Each structure stands twice: as structure tokens, then as C-alpha cells.
């Protein structure tokens, strides 16, 4: 543990002194402040948020959009924090002198991970005042904010671990950085495109009956319930779906029934509901018009995020394992063009 902290402290110090961090973090905060302001003025329109009383629930609407932007930007920053860690040290000739000390490969690997993750968390932490602002606007619970931040932090740690592993596998820092960005691209855009294309080609035929038009006919129905797992590892899906439920209000209908309704427009909640919906399998059921093959109203599949986060955590665990193995000395194999010292 001490060894991990020794490496992490060293790396953290070097990072802080190397770049113009104050400017970078400052610019990062200003951009997100601007985003929050824009989102607030967009959400604060009467046609979006009904009556005056509901304006106090603006926070949930703001928070969802802001956190998606935070995640998107953080996913752009994070690979840069770890993707040149090991091969960069090799290039500078500082790795081997660390490896011959009493630090174990695991301590070096975890120390480097901790340092890059810690830096990513600094960027995330800077956005907390914006979350507080959203909270003060109403419609948010502390649990929801904490949950979203926790999952975002985990997702950034996962990206750090994968980037770090790439920096041990590839000799050149530019190659590993490019591959780290491609990995993030695969997780975000790749999962979405794959899901879309595979779902479009996995359709089932069903015979339905519509009494109004008089008779049965064949339809083809997309089956996202068979392909949803392709979308599950998407960081945005994980973030939206894992967020603790937004506070709801109970509305009493004129007939005496009550329904629960989200307090305001909430993009995370909408994404989550959509994800649950695609997990539900369509089935034959009778309606007043005839027999349909569809997902019955009110039926949803389970949450998507446990699988998604699980897959991501497994990837990270594998990446950490690779990093440790690649840092182990004495070594038998050298990658082509790799210098040991």
C-alpha cells in the first residue's frame, strides 16, 4: 500500500508541475459553467416546465444534461491522462530505475492508475459546485447526485485502467494514445452503432390480426430485447440507467386513481426508461382491436446498467492485470523496439 502511494505521489507531483493545470482546470470549469447556464435558460421556458410551482424542479432537468456533457468531456480528457504513462516512462528512461527498487509491479501499476484516476477526479470534482446549483434549483435528491457522481467516477477509472494497459502494450506513446481514444470511441459510438445495425438485422416475423381492417397480416418486428446487451456497456447508458430515481410527485386523477410522475423533464430518467423498454420482449396479446405482437403497455425489462457496468469493470480488471504482467521484471520478452532502461 505504501508503495502504491509512493508511486502515486510521484506521478501526481510530476503531472501537476508538468503542464498548465490551473489553466486547463479553469477552462474546463468555465466551459461547463457555460453549459449549465445554457441548459438552465433552455429548461426555464414555460412550454417545457408548465407552471410556476414547477420551476423549483428545474434542477433535475439541468443536472441530467450537465452530467451527460461532463461525462462526454471527461471521456475526452481521461485517455490523455494514462495512455502515455508506461511507454512514456520507458522513452524517458525512468521506468527501469523504478523497477529495480523494491516496488513490486503491482505497486507501480496501481500507483500509476491511482495518479491518473485521481487527476480525472480533480476534473470531476471541479464540477461539484454546478451539481450544487442544480440541487438548489430543486427536483433532485442528494442520493441521485451522489449516485451519478459515483458511477461517473467509476467510468473514468475504467477508462484510466484501459489506457494504462495500452501504454504498457505499445512501445510508442502516440500509438497508445490513439488506441485509447479509439477504445473510448468504441465504447460510446461503437456500441450504439453496433446495437443499431445488429438490431436492424435481427427481426422476427409475426402474424397479427386487426379486426378493424378485417383480417390477419404479417409484420416484421425489431427485437432489441435480443440485442440490448450490445448497448449496455455504453458509458452514457450506464450512467443514465444507474442513476437513483429522481423524486416523483403523486398526482390524483379526477377518477380517484393516483399516478406517479417525474417532477420535471429529466433526460437521464428518459434514457433509463427507454433502455428498460428495449429490454422487454414483444409478445402476442389481445387488445380491443385484435391480436398484437408488441411490448404490452406498462411492461418493461429490467435495468441495463448492472450488465453494462459489470462488463466495463471486467475490462478494467483485465486491463489492470495486463498492466501488472507487463511491468513485471525480470522480463523474458521485449516488445519490438522497446528499450528496457
Amino acid at each position, binding site marked *: 500500500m505504501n*508503495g502504491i502511494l509512493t508511486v502515486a505521489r*510521484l506521478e501526481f507531483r510530476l503531472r501537476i508541475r508538468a503542464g498548465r493545470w490551473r489553466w486547463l482546470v479553469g477552462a474546463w470549469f468555465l466551459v461547463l459553467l457555460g453549459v449549465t447556464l445554457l441548459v438552465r435558460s433552455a429548461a426555464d421556458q414555460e412550454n417545457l416546465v408548465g407552471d410556476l410551482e414547477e420551476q423549483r424542479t428545474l434542477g433535475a432537468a439541468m443536472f441530467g444534461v450537465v452530467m451527460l456533457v461532463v461525462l462526454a468531456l471527461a471521456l475526452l480528457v481521461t485517455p490523455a491522462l494514462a495512455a502515455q504513462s508506461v511507454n512514456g516512462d520507458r522513452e524517458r528512461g525512468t521506468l*527501469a530505475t523504478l523497477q*529495480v527498487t*523494491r516496488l513490486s509491479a503491482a505497486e507501480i501499476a496501481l500507483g500509476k492508475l491511482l495518479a491518473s484516476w485521481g487527476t480525472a477526479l480533480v476534473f470531476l470534482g471541479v464540477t461539484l459546485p454546478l451539481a450544487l446549483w442544480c440541487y438548489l434549483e430543486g427536483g433532485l435528491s442528494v442520493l441521485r447526485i451522489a449516485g451519478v457522481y459515483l458511477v461517473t467516477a467509476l467510468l473514468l477509472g475504467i477508462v484510466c485502467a484501459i489506457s494504462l494497459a495500452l501504454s504498457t502494450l505499445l512501445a510508442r506513446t502516440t500509438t497508445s494514445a490513439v488506441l485509447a481514444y479509439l477504445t473510448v470511441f468504441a465504447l460510446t459510438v461503437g456500441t450504439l452503432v453496433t446495437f443499431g445495425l445488429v438490431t436492424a438485422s435481427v427481426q422476427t416475423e409475426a402474424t397479427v390480426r386487426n379486426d378493424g381492417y378485417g383480417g390477419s397480416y404479417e409484420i416484421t418486428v425489431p427485437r432489441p430485447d435480443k440485442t440490448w446487451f450490445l448497448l449496455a456497456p455504453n458509458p452514457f447508458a450506464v450512467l443514465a440507467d444507474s442513476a437513483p430515481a429522481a423524486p416523483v410527485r403523486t398526482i390524483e386523477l379526477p377518477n380517484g386513481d393516483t399516478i406517479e410522475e417525474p417532477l420535471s423533464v429529466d433526460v437521464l430518467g428518459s434514457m433509463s426508461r427507454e433502455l428498460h423498454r428495449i429490454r422487454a420482449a414483444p409478445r402476442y396479446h389481445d387488445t380491443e382491436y385484435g391480436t398484437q405482437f408488441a411490448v404490452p403497455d406498462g411492461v418493461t425489462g429490467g435495468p441495463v446498467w448492472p450488465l453494462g457496468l459489470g462488463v466495463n469493470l471486467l475490462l478494467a480488471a483485465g486491463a489492470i492485470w495486463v498492466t501488472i504482467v507487463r511491468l513485471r521484471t*525480470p522480463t523474458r520478452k521485449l516488445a519490438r523496439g522497446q528499450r*528496457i*532502461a
Partner: protein
Amino acid sequence: MTAAQAGVTARGIRRSFGPVHAVQGIDLDVPLGQVTALVGPNGAGKTTAMLVLATLLVPDAGEVRVAGFDPITQAGEVRARMGWAPDVFGMYDTLTCREYLETMAAAYRIPTGQRTDRARHLLELARLPDKAEQPVHSLSRGQKQRLGLVRALVHDPAVLLLDEPASGLDPRSRVELRDLLRRLAGEGRAVLVSSHILSDLEEVADRVVFVDGGRTVGQHAIGDMPQARTARTYRLRGLDPAALQAELEKRGVGWATAGHAGIDVQVLGGEESAARLLAELVAADVRVTAFAPVGGSLEATYLDLVEGQR
């Protein structure tokens, strides 16, 4: 040599990198309390052999003990007792010298309370005490080299492996390095030094191990090195250079001017012929003020070995 006296023993180290046979049979003994020089041309396998000793590289074959432990299966034990300074190394430029050494002390698991003292002591050893709070990038090349050397001493190792420690050092620093190495050996450490600057090695080393083409071609105590078989250059100076040249020409000894430094002649047949030439010149009334071999005997033996291989 028993294990207790031996800092390093290596028998038959072999290591290939793909088609390149970097090391094809290096034998090496580095006794405690002595400075052993590892000498050979570029590409002879010196650095690769050092990497094996430094617990960084698994050899394809060979029996190796460093401080009594196997660097492959007992790397941790070896690391606790071995210091290594590579030929090319980087430093954490933005750290101060003190931070750098304290970080290394932490990496060697030296207790927190002792790290500051240790760093101060090492900075004094490196003659950099006033640079303690300066960032490493502000150091000159020679100062960095010294800092890198004392870094290898952070944990007070019994075995010291130094790959080309003299490269980049000015003459004064080289003399200091020599004194430091002697002192470290005097404290009972086993010191292995590779270098190209043979004249320096000759003055500091107790033993010399010659490697060429990935093999050990000879291990000698510095006192009983084989005499050079090939011609050796001697540099002569006389009060009257013209008379000296004339006398040399009379004897059919080829000479070449070395500018203000004097006249260089090639002497075949070892020190015996050199002594005879000097006696003849003196007998012929040439007033000789300097008559000395160019380069040390180490260099001569080394060149001899390298020539012999070709």
C-alpha cells in the same frame, strides 16, 4: 572464491533478442571490496549482461548470483542489496534533487523518518548539497550523472552495477568518480563498472573483465595483464625536436608528429623494446624529456584482444 566474498558471480550468461545474439557466454566475477571493470567494444553485450544482473532481464541460459541470490527467482532479495545505474537514464525533471532522492528512498522502503537524512547524505556525496532544492532539470549533465550514481546508493547496497558512469563527466568529475568508486569498494562493496574511458578504469579497477562479441575473452587482475603483442604508441619529447627526429630516422623508427605534444613512435615487442629504444636515444646524447606510452596498458590489452578477434 566463496559465495560470501563474491558480490556477483555469473557463468555462461546467454541472451538473444530475436536473431541478435547479444550475449553468448559471459562469465563474470565481481568480488566484494574491489572495483571490477567490464571492458569491451560497443555491442559486446555489456549492457545486456548488466540488465541480467540488475534483475531486469531473464537470460536464455546461465547461472547468476548477485549478493548471494538469484536475480531471476529471488529478484526482491537481490534488489534490496544491489544498486544499478544504467548508461542512459532519465530523471524526473521537475522534482528537486532532494525530492528525487527521497522518492527513491521511499521506493526502497526506507522508513519515512530516515529519508531526509539519507537524501542529505547522498547529496553531499554527489557534491550537490546546495542543489537540494533545485529542480533536476537545472543540473548540468555531469551533475545529473552524479545524482544518478548516488541514487543507486540510496539503500546502501553491497553490490553496485554502473553502466558507463563516466560518460558526460568533465575531467575533474572523472577524478572524483574514481575516488568515489575506490571509497565505495573500500567500504567492502562489490563494484562493477563498464566504461569506454579505459585510462580512467585502469586507475580505479582492481580487476578487468574483457568481453567481445557477447563473450568473456579474459578476466585479469589489473596487476598481471598480458603484455601487448602488437605495436604500441609511445610519445616522446626532447629538448631539441630536430635532433630527436634525426636520431629516430637513423634507427629506422617510424615517427609522426603529435604537434606540441611531441612525437609519436610505434614500438613493437613490448616494454623490452621500448626500454631499449630509450637507452639508445639517451646513449646517442638525445636529451629526452618525456617517453611514455600513449594510453594505458588496459587500452593496449584491450586493443590487442579486439584486434585478435578480427
